[in-house]
C-alpha cells in the first residue's frame, strides 16, 4: 500500500470520527453533558489523535490531544459544558475538517490556527489534564499478548477498536442476564439473538463432530481425527463457558472424557465415539431448547428404494434424458442446500424465492421435455411454497419435509435421479468435487451478501484443510474462554447489537466509488449480453422447430440439435441467474443508509437557526433507509435547501411562536422510508405554514396574472406556486433564503432524477414536503414504445396508465385532441409529431395512449405500438458538445442497437413550444382544467 493509499484511508477514517464528534457535540448542546456522548467524543478525539500521530501530522495530533484532555476534564466534572465550549469545540472540528481537505489536495499538513489550541487551553485552564488513553493502549497491548494463538482472528479484527472499547469499561457494563441452571435444567437465555448465534454455531460444530466420528464407524479413530474431535469439543466448551452454561460445560467435559476413554480402549473406537456423541446430542437437545441436533440429516440414502418403482418417464432419447436428469439433479441439490439443516429458524424470504425460482426453472425444463407429470408435481410444490410464503412462516425443517414429500414421486418418475443427496453433499469428504458443484458454490458465494455465511460454508468441501481454516473463522464468532475479560465484553457488546450476519461482515472494505460504478457498468453490459443470449437461444429453438417440421433432417441429426438446444436453454437460464444476482449484489453494494446524508444536517440546522435567532429541533426518522449512493449524493443540496427554507420561512421566531401558543423552539422532522421502488423523504416543520393569500398577492403583482385566473386555483394548487422561480412570501431578501431562488431549481433537479415533490401545508400549523425519488438511478424499469418505426424507452416511474387508442373516445376541442379519463380532460400528443419524425400511419389498432405524468400534470402520449416493459441500464451519452433535449439518456437493447430514453418533463416543455402558435387555445383549454398559463 502506498503512502497515498494510507493518506486516503486516514482522511476517510478521520472524517468519520469527525462526523461522530460533531453529532455528539450537537447532542450535548441539546441535552447537556451526558456520559455517553462525552465518551463518544473522547473516543473519536482519541482515534483521530492516534491516526494523526501515526501519519506524522503533529499539529492535528496536538489539537486532538488537547481536545481529548479537555474531554477528560469534562468527564471528571472539572469542566462544565457551556454553549461557548460547544462553539469552540465545533470550531476545532471545522478546523480539522478544513485541514483534511487541504491534506487531500496537497498531501501535507497545513498550519492550524494556533488560536484554537489557545482557546481550548484557556477554557480548560482550571482543569488538570490526565493522560488516560496512553495507559489504556499499553494495557490493551498486554491483554493482546496474553491471548493464545487460537484467538488470533479476534485479535486482528478488533485491534483497532480495543482502546476505544476499553474506555467504555469505566461505564458500568450491563452484562446480559444469564440464568445459571442447575443440573439438567433447561437453559433460558434472555438475549435471544445471542442465544441463537450460540445455538447455530453449536449446531455447526456438533455436526462436524458427528461427521468426523461417523467416518470411522468401523475402525479405530486415528490420532489425527481424535485431535480434531477434541479440538471441536474444545470449541464447544469455550463457547459454552463464554455463555456461562455450566450444565453444558459439564456435559461436554464428560463427553470429552468418554471419548478419550473409548479411544484408549482401542478397537473400533470410532463406533463408540459416535455412540457417545449421539448420546450427548440427545442430552444437549434437552438442555438447549431449539437446538435440533438430531432431527435434520434429512437424507434417505437407501439405494434400494430408488430403482424402478412407479411408472417411470419413458424417453426414446436416452442421452437427452440423461442430460435432463443431470441438470434436474443439480437443481434438486441446490434446492436441498437452501435448507441444509432442519431447524426451527424460519426461512428468509430470499431463500424461499430462490427455492421457488429453482422450481420454476425445473418446471420449464420439464415442460421443454414434455414431461407433464413432472411439471404437475413441481407446480404443486411451488404452490405449497407460495402458500407458505404468503403465510410468512416456513421453518427449515418444514421446508425439508416438503422437499421429502415431493422428492419421492419425482424419483418414481425419474428413476435415474440420484436422490441420495448425501453423496453429493459436501459433508462427505470422499465425494470428489464436480465442476458443476463448484459453479454452484460460486453462485452461493455471490449470494453470500444475504445468506448467512454458515450456509455458503456448507457448500465447501470439508476436507481436513477446510476444517482447520473454518475453525479459525469460527473463532470470530465464538471467542475462547481464555480471552481477557475486556475482549469478551467487547465481543458480547458487539453481538448484542449486531446479528450474526453483521458480525461476520464486520470487516468492511473501503472501495473507490468509481470502481463500483465501473463494475456496475460492466454488469450493465452483462445484462445486455444476457438478453442477446436469450434472443439467440430462442431463435435457435425456433429454427430447430422449423427444420423439424420440414423433415429434412435425419432423426439423429435432429436429436443432436435438440440436445444442443436444451443445453443452450439451460445455460441461458444460468447466465440470466448469475447476471441478475450479480446485478442485485452490486446494486446492494451501492446502497447506503440515508444516515450518511442525514447526519450532516443537525449541524446545518444548528448553524442556520443560530444565525436567524430561532430555536429549532431536528428529529430524524428512518435514517437506516437504504438508497443508491448516486441518488444519495444528489439529494444533499435539495434537502439542505428545504431545511434552510423551513428554518427561514417555516419556523417563526420564538416570541411569535409564544404568541401563537406554540413552544418557543420549532421542530423539523426529517423522515425517510421505502415506498415500493422509491424512497420517500418528508421534511415537516411546525411553523407558520404557507400563506396562500400572500402567494396570490405576489402572483398578482409580480407575475401579472389576472385575479380571475387566480380565483380558479384552489388553495392546494396555489401552494405549488412556491416552486415558481422568483416567488417568495418572505417580505425581504436576506442571505439565508427569501430570494425566491431555490425551490424551482430544486424541483427541476428532482424531476431530472425521476423524482417528485408534494407539498401540504396548514396555515399556522406547519408545512410538509414529501419528496419521492427512485431507489436507484442506474437501472430502471422502462416501457418500450414505438414512435414511427423507432423504439423509445419511457421510465416506468412517469407512466401512470396505458390505454388503447380508440378513435371514438378522442374528442377535439378547438383543434386539440383530448380524451376524458375518469372526468379529467387529458390532452393528447402524438409521439411522432412531438419528435418531428415522420409519422407512419400505423393501424390505429396498434396504437396506445401512454399517460405520462410529471408531478402535476398529465399528458396522453399516443404511440404507434407497445413493446413491453423491461429493465434498462441508463447510459449517458458520451458527448458533451451537444444538448440532447427531450432525452435523459440512452440504453442499449438486446440486439445491440441504441434506444433513446424520453425525458418526460422536457418532453412536455417541448410540447408547449411546438404548440406555441396555438397557445391561446391551449391556455383556454388549460384554464378549463383549473390550470393556467402565463404570458
Amino acid at each position, binding site marked *: 500500500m502506498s503512502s497515498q493509499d494510507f493518506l486516503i484511508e486516514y482522511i476517510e477514517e478521520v472524517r468519520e470520527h469527525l462526523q461522530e464528534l460533531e453529532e455528539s457535540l450537537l447532542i450535548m448542546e441539546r441535552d447537556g453533558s451526558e456520559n455517553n456522548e462525552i465518551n463518544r467524543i473522547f473516543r473519536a478525539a482519541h482515534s483521530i489523535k492516534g491516526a494523526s500521530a501515526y501519519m506524522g501530522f503533529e499539529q492535528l495530533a496536538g489539537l486532538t490531544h488537547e481536545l481529548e484532555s479537555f474531554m477528560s476534564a469534562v468527564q471528571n466534572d472539572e469542566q462544565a459544558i457551556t454553549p461557548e465550549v460547544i462553539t469552540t469545540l465545533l470550531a476545532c472540528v471545522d478546523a480539522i475538517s478544513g485541514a483534511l481537505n487541504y491534506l487531500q489536495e496537497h498531501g501535507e499538513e497545513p498550519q492550524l490556527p494556533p488560536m484554537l489550541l489557545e482557546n481550548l487551553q484557556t477554557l480548560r485552564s482550571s482543569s488538570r489534564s490526565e493522560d488516560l488513553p496512553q495507559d489504556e493502549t499499553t494495557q490493551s497491548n498486554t491483554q493482546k499478548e496474553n491471548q493464545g494463538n487460537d484467538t488470533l482472528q479476534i485479535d486482528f479484527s478488533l485491534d483497532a477498536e480495543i482502546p476505544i472499547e476499553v474506555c467504555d469499561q469505566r461505564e458500568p457494563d450491563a452484562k446480559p442476564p444469564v440464568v445459571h441452571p442447575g443440573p439438567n435444567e433447561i437453559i433460558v437465555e434472555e438475549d435471544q439473538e445471542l442465544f441463537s448465534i450460540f445455538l447455530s454455531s453449536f449446531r455447526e460444530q456438533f455436526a462436524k463432530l458427528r461427521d468426523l466420528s461417523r467416518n470411522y464407524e468401523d475402525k479405530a479413530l486415528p490420532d489425527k481425527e481424535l485431535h480434531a474431535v477434541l479440538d471441536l469439543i474444545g470449541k464447544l466448551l469455550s463457547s459454552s463457558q463464554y455463555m456461562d452454561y455450566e450444565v453444558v460445560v459439564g456435559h461436554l467435559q464428560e463427553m470429552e472424557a468418554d471419548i478419550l476413554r473409548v479411544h484408549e480402549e482401542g478397537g473400533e473406537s470410532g463406533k463408540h465415539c459416535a455412540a457417545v456423541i449421539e448420546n450427548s446430542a440427545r442430552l444437549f437437545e434437552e438442555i438447549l431448547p431449539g437446538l435440533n441436533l438430531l432431527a435434520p440429516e434429512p437424507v434417505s440414502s437407501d439405494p434400494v428404494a430408488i430403482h424402478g418403482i412407479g411408472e417411470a418417464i419413458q424417453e426414446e432419447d436416452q442421452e437427452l434424458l440423461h442430460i435432463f436428469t443431470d441438470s434436474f439433479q443439480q437443481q434438486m441439490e441446490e434446492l436441498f442446500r437452501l435448507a441444509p439443516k432442519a431447524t426451527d429458524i424460519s426461512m428468509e424470504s430470499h431463500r424461499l424465492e430462490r427455492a421457488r425460482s429453482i422450481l420454476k426453472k425445473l418446471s420449464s425444463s420439464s415442460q421443454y421435455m414434455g414431461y407433464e407429470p413432472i411439471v404437475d408435481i413441481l407446480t404443486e410444490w411451488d404452490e405449497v411454497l407460495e402458500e407458505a410464503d404468503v403465510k410468512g412462516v416456513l421453518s427449515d425443517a418444514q421446508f425439508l419435509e416438503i422437499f421429502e414429500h415431493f422428492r419421492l414421486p419425482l424419483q418414481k418418475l425419474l428413476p435415474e435421479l440420484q436422490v441420495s443427496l448425501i453423496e453429493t453433499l459436501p459433508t462427505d469428504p470422499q465425494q470428489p468435487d464436480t465442476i458443476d458443484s463448484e459453479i454452484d458454490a460460486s453462485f452461493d458465494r455471490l449470494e453470500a451478501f444475504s445468506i448467512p455465511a454458515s450456509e455458503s460454508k456448507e457448500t465447501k468441501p470439508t476436507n481436513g484443510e477446510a476444517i482447520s481454516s473454518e475453525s479459525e473463522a469460527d473463532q470470530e464468532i465464538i471467542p475462547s474462554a481464555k480471552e481477557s475479560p475486556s475482549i469478551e465484553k467487547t465481543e458480547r457488546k458487539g453481538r448484542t447489537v449486531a446479528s450474526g450476519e453483521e458480525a461476520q461482515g464486520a470487516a468492511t472494505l473501503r472501495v473507490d466509488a468509481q470502481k463500483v460504478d465501473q463494475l456496475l*457498468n460492466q454488469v*450493465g*453490459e452483462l445484462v*445486455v449480453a444476457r438478453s442477446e443470449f436469450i434472443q439467440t437461444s430462442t431463435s435457435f429453438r425456433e429454427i430447430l422447430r422449423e427444420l423439424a417440421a420440414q423433415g429434412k433432417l435425419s432423426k439423429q441429426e435432429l436429436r443432436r440439435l435438440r440436445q444442443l438446444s436444451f443445453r443452450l436453454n439451460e445455460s441461458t437460464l444460468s447466465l440470466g441467474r448469475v447476471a441478475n444476482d450479480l446485478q442485485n449484489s452490486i446494486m446492494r453494494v451501492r446502497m447506503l443508509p440515508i444516515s450518511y446524508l442525514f447526519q450532516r444536517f443537525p449541524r446545518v440546522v444548528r448553524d442556520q437557526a443560530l444565525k436567524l435567532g430561532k430555536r429549532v429541533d431536528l428529529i430524524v426518522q428512518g435514517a437506516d433507509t437504504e438508497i443508491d449512493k448516486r441518488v444519495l449524493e444528489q439529494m444533499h443540496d435539495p434537502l439542505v435547501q428545504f431545511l434552510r427554507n423551513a428554518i427561514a420561512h417555516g419556523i417563526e421566531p420564538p416570541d411569535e411562536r409564544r404568541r401563537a401558543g406554540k413552544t418557543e423552539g420549532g421542530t423539523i422532522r426529517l423522515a425517510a422510508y421505502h415506498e415500493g421502488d422509491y424512497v420517500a423523504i418528508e421534511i415537516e416543520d411546525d411553523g407558520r405554514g404557507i400563506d396562500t393569500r400572500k402567494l396570490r398577492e405576489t402572483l398578482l403583482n409580480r*407575475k*401579472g396574472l389576472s385575479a380571475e385566473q387566480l380565483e380558479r*386555483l384552489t388553495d392546494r*394548487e396555489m401552494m*405549488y*406556486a412556491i*416552486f*415558481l*422561480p422568483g416567488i417568495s412570501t418572505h417580505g425581504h431578501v436576506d442571505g439565508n433564503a427569501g430570494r425566491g431562488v431555490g425551490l*424551482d431549481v430544486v*424541483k*427541476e433537479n428532482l424531476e431530472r432524477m425521476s423524482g417528485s415533490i408534494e407539498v401540504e401545508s396548514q396555515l399556522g400549523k406547519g408545512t410538509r414536503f414529501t419528496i419521492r425519488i427512485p431507489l436507484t438511478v442506474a437501472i430502471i424499469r422502462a416501457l418500450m414504445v414505438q414512435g414511427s418505426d*423507432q423504439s423509445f424507452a419511457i421510465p416506468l416511474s412517469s407512466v401512470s396508465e396505458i390505454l388503447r387508442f380508440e378513435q371514438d373516445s378522442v374528442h377535439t376541442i378547438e383543434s386539440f385532441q383530448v380524451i376524458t379519463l375518469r372526468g379529467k380532460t387529458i390532452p393528447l400528443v402524438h409521439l411522432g409529431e412531438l*419528435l*418531428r*419524425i415522420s409519422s407512419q400511419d400505423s393501424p390505429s389498432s396498434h396504437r396506445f395512449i401512454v399517460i405520462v405524468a*410529471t*408531478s*402535476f*400534470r398529465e399528458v396522453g402520449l399516443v404511440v404507434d405500438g407497445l413493446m413491453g416493459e423491461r429493465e434498462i441500464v441508463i*447510459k*449517458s*451519452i*458520451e*458527448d*458533451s*458538445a*451537444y*444538448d*440532447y*433535449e*427531450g*432525452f435523459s*439518456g*440512452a440504453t*442499449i437493447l438486446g440486439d*445491440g*442497437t*441504441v*434506444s*433513446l430514453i424520453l425525458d418526460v*418533463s422536457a418532453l*412536455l*416543455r*417541448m410540447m*408547449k*413550444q411546438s404548440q*406555441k402558435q396555438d397557445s391561446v387555445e391551449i391556455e383556454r383549454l*388549460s384554464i378549463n382544467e383549473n*390550470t*393556467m*398559463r*402565463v*404570458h
Partner: protein
Amino acid sequence: MEMPSLASRVSRAEREESEQFKQLVSFRIGEEEFGVDILVVQEIIRLPTITPLPNAQRFILGMINLRGKIIPVIDLRKRLRISGRKSNLNDRKTRVLIVEMQSSVTGFIVDSVSEVMRIPVNEIEPTPHLVVSNIESEYIKGVIKLPNRLVILLDFQQVLRPQEVREIQNAHINTIEGELLGSSPGIESVL
C-alpha cells in the same frame, strides 16, 4: 484501415511530433481530401446501425453503440456544409472516424479513409485567406500541398466547438424565451 496499425503508429507519432513531424489520417468527402491529426482519432469503424435522434440538428445523424458506449454520429459533410451529393450511407467505403476530444467522443461520417500520412510540420501552410472549397476558414487549421493534390487539415476542435453549437441553439431558444418572457418553462407544469 486496421486498428492495430493505427494504435502502434500513435505512439510513434507522439515521438515524432517533437521531431517536427505530424501524422495525419487523410479522408475524403466528395472531391475534397482532408487530414486530421492522428492523435485525436480513436479509431475508424464501418458504419454501424444508427439510431436517429429526433429533434436534433440536421447534421447529427443519431446515436451508435460503440462497445457499450453511446456516442453521437455527425455527418461531416453536412457539418462543414459541403455542397454536392448527399452522403451515401450504403457505400462500402463509408467510414466513421471516432474522434476523442475534450472528454467527449463523437463519430464523424466520411466518404472514405485513404491513408495515414507523415508530414513535416513546416509543410503545413496556414489557411489561405481565400476560402477553400467553400469551407469556412475557421474549421481549417492549414493546408498541405502535395504533388497533384491539396489536403485540408481540419481543426476538429472548431468543428466540435460547443459554443458555436450552443449559439445555434440559443438563437432558437431565445426566440422562444422572448415569447415566454416573464414566465418560465416551469409554470405551466406547476399550476
